[in-house]
Protein backbone atom coordinates (compact mmCIF):
# COMPACT_ATOMS: atom_id res chain seq x y z
CA UNK A 1 0.00 0.00 0.00
CA UNK A 2 1.53 3.35 -1.01
CA UNK A 3 1.27 6.76 0.69
CA UNK A 4 -1.46 8.02 -1.63
CA UNK A 5 -3.67 5.01 -0.92
CA UNK A 6 -3.18 5.45 2.80
CA UNK A 7 -4.13 9.14 2.65
CA UNK A 8 -7.28 8.26 0.71
CA UNK A 9 -8.28 5.75 3.40
CA UNK A 10 -7.98 8.18 6.31
CA UNK A 11 -11.36 8.50 8.02
CA UNK A 12 -11.00 12.29 8.48
CA UNK A 13 -11.86 15.38 6.52
CA UNK A 14 -11.49 19.13 6.97
CA UNK A 15 -11.50 20.74 9.46
CA UNK A 16 -10.13 17.70 11.28
CA UNK A 17 -7.73 16.18 8.78
CA UNK A 18 -4.19 16.76 10.01
CA UNK A 19 -2.05 14.89 7.49
CA UNK A 20 -0.67 16.49 4.30
CA UNK A 21 1.90 14.00 3.18
CA UNK A 22 3.61 10.74 4.09
CA UNK A 23 7.29 10.73 3.18
CA UNK A 24 8.23 7.28 4.46
CA UNK A 25 6.30 4.28 5.72
CA UNK A 26 7.17 0.67 6.43
CA UNK A 27 6.10 -1.96 8.96
CA UNK A 28 8.25 -0.39 11.68
CA UNK A 29 7.27 3.23 11.39
CA UNK A 30 6.09 6.26 9.47
CA UNK A 31 7.15 9.83 8.77
CA UNK A 32 4.74 12.49 7.57
CA UNK A 33 4.11 16.22 7.49
CA UNK A 34 1.39 18.75 8.15
CA UNK A 35 1.31 22.54 7.73
CA UNK A 36 -0.89 24.56 10.07
CA UNK A 37 -3.02 26.93 7.97
CA UNK A 38 -3.25 30.26 9.77
CA UNK A 39 -7.01 30.30 9.09
CA UNK A 40 -7.71 27.20 11.17
CA UNK A 41 -10.63 27.98 13.44
CA UNK A 42 -8.99 27.23 16.79
CA UNK A 43 -6.42 30.00 16.32
CA UNK A 44 -9.23 32.51 16.85
CA UNK A 45 -9.55 31.40 20.45
CA UNK A 46 -6.19 29.84 21.41
CA UNK A 47 -5.16 32.31 22.58
CA UNK A 48 -7.04 35.63 22.32
CA UNK A 49 -5.04 37.74 19.84
CA UNK A 50 -2.11 35.37 20.26
CA UNK A 51 -2.49 32.29 18.04
CA UNK A 52 -0.54 29.24 19.20
CA UNK A 53 -1.36 25.65 18.22
CA UNK A 54 -3.11 23.87 21.13
CA UNK A 55 -1.40 20.80 22.61
CA UNK A 56 -4.48 18.68 21.94
CA UNK A 57 -4.18 19.52 18.25
CA UNK A 58 -0.46 18.67 18.24
CA UNK A 59 -1.44 15.37 19.86
CA UNK A 60 -4.05 14.80 17.15
CA UNK A 61 -1.49 15.47 14.40
CA UNK A 62 0.88 12.97 16.02
CA UNK A 63 -1.91 10.42 16.34
CA UNK A 64 -3.23 10.81 12.78
CA UNK A 65 0.21 10.53 11.16
CA UNK A 66 2.01 8.35 13.66
CA UNK A 67 -0.73 5.94 14.62
CA UNK A 68 -3.63 5.98 12.13
CA UNK A 69 -1.55 6.14 8.93
CA UNK A 70 0.74 3.41 10.22
CA UNK A 71 -2.24 1.37 11.41
CA UNK A 72 -3.89 1.53 7.96
CA UNK A 73 -0.60 0.41 6.42
CA UNK A 74 -0.24 -2.47 8.90
CA UNK A 75 -3.75 -3.87 8.52
CA UNK A 76 -3.49 -3.22 4.77
CA UNK A 77 -6.53 -4.39 2.79
CA UNK A 78 -8.48 -5.25 5.90
CA UNK A 79 -9.06 -1.57 6.63
CA UNK A 80 -12.58 -0.52 5.64
CA UNK A 81 -15.75 1.15 6.88
CA UNK A 82 -16.24 -1.51 9.52
CA UNK A 83 -12.84 -0.89 11.03
CA UNK A 84 -13.15 0.88 14.31
CA UNK A 85 -10.32 3.05 15.46
CA UNK A 86 -9.98 4.56 18.88
CA UNK A 87 -7.27 6.41 20.68
CA UNK A 88 -6.59 4.62 23.96
CA UNK A 89 -3.71 6.47 25.61
CA UNK A 90 -1.28 9.33 25.15
CA UNK A 91 1.75 10.37 27.14
CA UNK A 92 3.24 13.45 25.53
CA UNK A 93 5.70 16.14 26.52
CA UNK A 94 5.37 19.51 24.82
CA UNK A 95 8.72 21.22 24.39
CA UNK A 96 8.23 24.20 22.08
CA UNK A 97 5.32 26.28 20.77
CA UNK A 98 4.02 25.79 17.23
CA UNK A 99 2.69 28.91 15.48
CA UNK A 100 0.34 29.36 12.49
CA UNK A 101 1.91 28.50 9.10
CA UNK A 102 4.53 26.23 10.63
CA UNK A 103 5.18 22.93 8.90
CA UNK A 104 5.80 19.99 11.23
CA UNK A 105 7.20 16.54 10.63
CA UNK A 106 5.97 13.58 12.66
CA UNK A 107 8.25 10.58 13.10
CA UNK A 108 6.69 7.47 14.57
CA UNK A 109 8.32 4.23 15.55
CA UNK A 110 6.22 1.15 16.27
CA UNK A 111 6.62 -0.30 19.77
CA UNK A 112 4.17 -3.12 19.08
CA UNK A 113 1.04 -4.05 17.16
CA UNK A 114 -0.64 -6.93 18.97
CA UNK A 115 -4.27 -7.99 19.48
CA UNK A 116 -5.41 -4.91 17.53
CA UNK A 117 -3.53 -2.46 19.72
CA UNK A 118 -0.89 -0.27 18.10
CA UNK A 119 1.56 1.51 20.37
CA UNK A 120 4.15 3.94 19.01
CA UNK A 121 6.91 6.25 20.13
CA UNK A 122 6.15 9.51 18.37
CA UNK A 123 8.15 12.68 17.88
CA UNK A 124 7.21 15.96 16.19
CA UNK A 125 9.84 18.30 14.73
CA UNK A 126 9.56 21.84 13.39
CA UNK A 127 11.21 23.18 10.24
CA UNK A 128 14.38 23.98 12.16
CA UNK A 129 14.60 20.30 13.04
CA UNK A 130 13.88 21.02 16.70
CA UNK A 131 11.83 18.54 18.66
CA UNK A 132 8.51 20.22 19.59
CA UNK A 133 6.86 17.26 21.27
CA UNK A 134 7.66 13.65 22.03
CA UNK A 135 5.83 10.80 23.64
CA UNK A 136 3.97 7.54 23.38
CA UNK A 137 0.56 7.08 21.77
CA UNK A 138 -1.58 3.96 21.59
CA UNK A 139 -4.83 3.06 19.90
CA UNK A 140 -7.05 0.18 18.90
CA UNK A 141 -7.78 -0.84 15.31
CA UNK A 142 -10.26 -3.64 14.86
CA UNK A 143 -12.33 -4.79 11.94
CA UNK A 144 -15.04 -7.02 13.37
CA UNK A 145 -18.03 -5.11 14.73
CA UNK A 146 -18.35 -7.50 17.67
CA UNK A 147 -14.73 -7.11 18.68
CA UNK A 148 -15.00 -3.36 18.37
CA UNK A 149 -17.57 -3.13 21.10
CA UNK A 150 -15.37 -5.15 23.43
CA UNK A 151 -12.42 -2.97 22.59
CA UNK A 152 -14.27 0.20 23.41
CA UNK A 153 -15.86 -0.91 26.66
Amino acid at each position, binding site marked *: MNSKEILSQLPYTKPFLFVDDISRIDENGVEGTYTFDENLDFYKGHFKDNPITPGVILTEVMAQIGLVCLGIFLVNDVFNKNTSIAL*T*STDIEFLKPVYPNEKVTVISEKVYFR*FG*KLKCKVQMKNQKGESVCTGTI*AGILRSSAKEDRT*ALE
Partner: protein
Amino acid sequence: MNKEETIQELKAIVKPYIQNEEAFENLTEDTDFINDLKINSANLVDVILDIEEKYDIVIDNEAMEKMSNVKAALTIIETQLASK
Protein backbone atom coordinates in the same frame (compact mmCIF):
# COMPACT_ATOMS: atom_id res chain seq x y z
CA MET B 1 4.80 -23.95 38.50
CA ASN B 2 3.86 -22.85 42.01
CA LYS B 3 0.34 -21.46 41.85
CA GLU B 4 0.55 -19.10 44.83
CA GLU B 5 3.83 -17.73 43.60
CA THR B 6 2.45 -17.20 40.10
CA ILE B 7 -0.60 -15.39 41.49
CA GLN B 8 1.76 -13.03 43.34
CA GLU B 9 3.72 -12.49 40.12
CA LEU B 10 0.50 -11.79 38.24
CA LYS B 11 -0.50 -9.28 40.90
CA ALA B 12 2.74 -7.40 40.31
CA ILE B 13 2.11 -7.41 36.55
CA VAL B 14 -1.48 -6.09 36.71
CA LYS B 15 -0.84 -3.52 39.46
CA PRO B 16 -0.03 -0.56 37.16
CA TYR B 17 -3.26 -1.04 35.20
CA ILE B 18 -5.91 -1.70 37.88
CA GLN B 19 -8.65 0.81 38.70
CA ASN B 20 -10.18 -1.02 41.66
CA GLU B 21 -7.79 -1.13 44.60
CA GLU B 22 -10.12 -3.18 46.82
CA ALA B 23 -10.57 -5.97 44.27
CA PHE B 24 -6.82 -5.93 43.75
CA GLU B 25 -6.11 -6.32 47.47
CA ASN B 26 -8.56 -9.23 47.66
CA LEU B 27 -7.44 -10.85 44.42
CA THR B 28 -8.27 -14.55 44.06
CA GLU B 29 -8.30 -17.04 41.19
CA ASP B 30 -11.83 -15.90 40.34
CA THR B 31 -10.92 -12.23 40.01
CA ASP B 32 -11.88 -10.95 36.56
CA PHE B 33 -9.40 -8.56 34.96
CA ILE B 34 -11.97 -6.29 33.32
CA ASN B 35 -15.07 -6.62 35.53
CA ASP B 36 -13.37 -6.75 38.94
CA LEU B 37 -10.01 -5.04 38.56
CA LYS B 38 -11.49 -2.58 36.00
CA ILE B 39 -8.50 -2.90 33.72
CA ASN B 40 -9.53 -1.37 30.40
CA SER B 41 -9.33 -3.64 27.37
CA ALA B 42 -6.51 -1.63 25.76
CA ASN B 43 -4.40 -2.02 28.90
CA LEU B 44 -5.23 -5.71 29.04
CA VAL B 45 -3.05 -6.02 25.92
CA ASP B 46 -0.15 -4.60 27.94
CA VAL B 47 -0.87 -7.04 30.76
CA ILE B 48 -0.68 -9.92 28.28
CA LEU B 49 2.55 -8.64 26.71
CA ASP B 50 4.04 -8.32 30.20
CA ILE B 51 2.99 -11.92 30.95
CA GLU B 52 4.65 -13.07 27.71
CA GLU B 53 7.85 -11.33 28.69
CA LYS B 54 7.86 -12.51 32.28
CA TYR B 55 7.38 -16.18 31.40
CA ASP B 56 9.03 -16.11 27.96
CA ILE B 57 5.91 -17.52 26.29
CA VAL B 58 3.79 -16.53 23.29
CA ILE B 59 0.07 -15.92 23.76
CA ASP B 60 -1.98 -16.15 20.56
CA ASN B 61 -5.31 -14.49 19.74
CA GLU B 62 -7.31 -17.51 20.87
CA ALA B 63 -5.59 -17.66 24.26
CA MET B 64 -5.87 -13.89 24.60
CA GLU B 65 -9.66 -14.05 24.23
CA LYS B 66 -9.87 -16.68 26.97
CA MET B 67 -7.74 -14.72 29.39
CA SER B 68 -10.53 -12.99 31.29
CA ASN B 69 -9.62 -13.84 34.87
CA VAL B 70 -6.74 -14.96 37.07
CA LYS B 71 -7.65 -18.64 36.78
CA ALA B 72 -7.65 -18.53 32.98
CA ALA B 73 -4.33 -16.71 32.99
CA LEU B 74 -2.81 -19.37 35.26
CA THR B 75 -4.06 -22.14 32.96
CA ILE B 76 -2.66 -20.44 29.87
CA ILE B 77 0.71 -19.76 31.49
CA GLU B 78 0.88 -23.36 32.68
CA THR B 79 -0.06 -24.76 29.24
CA GLN B 80 2.42 -22.57 27.43
CA LEU B 81 5.24 -23.35 29.87
CA ALA B 82 4.52 -27.07 29.52
CA SER B 83 4.67 -26.95 25.72
CA LYS B 84 8.02 -25.16 25.68
